[in-house]
């Protein structure tokens, strides 16, 4: 890709270095902005909520606060997988709400320059295509950067707040 195609994702004009928390999902590595991540939890029992949207797994009690957990695989259009020891619940803050996302595993925190981030191929027609901020090649492995604010639509964020 050319430099013109490169996108400065959450990067200022000085090509600032940002930290990204990476996690695995269906053999792919995704990255989320470290500033939005509050904590990472081991898998705990998730209480289902009757009448909740299909992408909602349920709720957990996080130190006295009810946190809604999102089925990330479903949201990303991936097949469901068995829960194992690597499964984690990542607590994030987006759109002024605190939610949890279920992932296969959490890998590490990486540092990326804005110039190292490329545009994702703009061929997506599905809603999930909007989640991707960009891609970056790191150690011959592709890191897909996710925009958590776009994980859900405004209506969905509203709906989620009323659960």
């Amino acid at each position, binding site marked *: *890709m050319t430099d013109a195609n490169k996108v400065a994702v959450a990067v200022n004009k000085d090509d600032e270095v940002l930290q990204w928390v990476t996690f695995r999902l269906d053999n792919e590595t995704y990255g989320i902005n470290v500033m939005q991540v509050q904590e990472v939890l081991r898998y705990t029992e998730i209480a289902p909520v009757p009448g909740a949207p299909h992408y909602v797994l349920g709720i957990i009690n996080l130190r006295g606060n009810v946190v809604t957990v999102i089925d990330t695989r479903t949201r*990303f259009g991936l097949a469901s997988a068995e829960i194992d020891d690597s499964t984690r619940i990542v607590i994030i803050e987006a759109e002024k709400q605190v939610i949890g996302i279920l992932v296969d595993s959490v890998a590490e925190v990486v540092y990326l320059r804005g110039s190292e981030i490329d545009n994702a191929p*703009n061929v997506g027609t599905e809603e*999930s295509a909007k*989640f*991707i901020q960009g891609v970056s090649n790191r150690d*011959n*492995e592709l890191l897909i950067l996710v925009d958590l604010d776009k994980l859900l639509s405004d209506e969905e964020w509203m709906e989620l707040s009323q659960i």
Partner: protein
Amino acid sequence: MTTSVDETVFDYFSLLLTEVEDEPNIQVEAITADIAEQVFPELISDGSSSNALKLKGLKSELVNNEPVIEKPETIETPRLQTQLKTQSHNKTQTETQALTKSKIRETDPHLDKLALEQLLAPVFKPEPQIETESIVKLQNQTLAKSKIKTTSVPDKVAVKPKVDVHVENKIDIKQNQEQELELKTQLGEIPPKVTKDLLETLDDEFQVLFFKVAGLTLAVPLVSLGGIVKIERINHIMGRPAWYKGVQTYRDTQLNIVDTGAWVMPEKYDKALAESVNYQYVVLLEDSNWGLTCESLVNAVRITKSEVNWRSKAGKRPWLAGVVKEQMCGILHVQALIELLNSGLGSQDPVG
């Protein structure tokens, strides 16, 4: 003399009626005898033997001299009489002939025989005459027409309209020729509009790479080939079409990998076929970051433009430049294909 005068007269006339063959001579004799009696009354009234002998001599002279002296008229008349008697069915014709002859004689006795034949010819030989007349008429008509034509051309001052009409005809001919050319191009003769850019870049002889995807052979011109990369690790990216296989890192760049089978023939590319396909290589399209997956690389051969049936119109498949005749496989229009992929369009998505 025992018989009376009346009986003698009766016998004479009965003889006349019975002797038909000698009738002319008898008539002549009677006529000549009458004339002789009128001319020489003293000899007849005399009744002597010497006078009788003289009368016989005169009669014989008259009989002998008669045909010689008045042959034309005296012979014609009995001939006409016999014709009237024997040829009753041709009476009118003979009468007309006789009348015309007599009239001709009356008007011009020295009329030429040829002139007469010419006059009578239409009556006896009508068909040839009519033919010649018709031929002559036609010849005259054609001559007249040709004369009219030749005379009308210089009369027409406005030559330009004629020229315009001719030009229009030429235009029509050109249009027909263009239609024919279009038909010919579909048969693989002259490059059409859509593939114009591609064909301008191609030499008359160019190389193509053949590769296989799920039993389908495709060709790509080597000038449009960006490279061949072995498939290693393709990262799936969510929210992309089914034909978008993912991204592969190659020399610090990300290649967008197309599931060629799913893109080219989505209607046939079911789950079973997708599972059976074993992609090995990525055929890179020019200098773009798009690559087509393929199971195997067949070979690269040199072909000429005439060996390809170039498509004349983009239609629903602008990515298909034509068909290679010998291998019977599609040849890709890489530029059009890249444009479609950049737009996120599949092979069967509506264009434009």
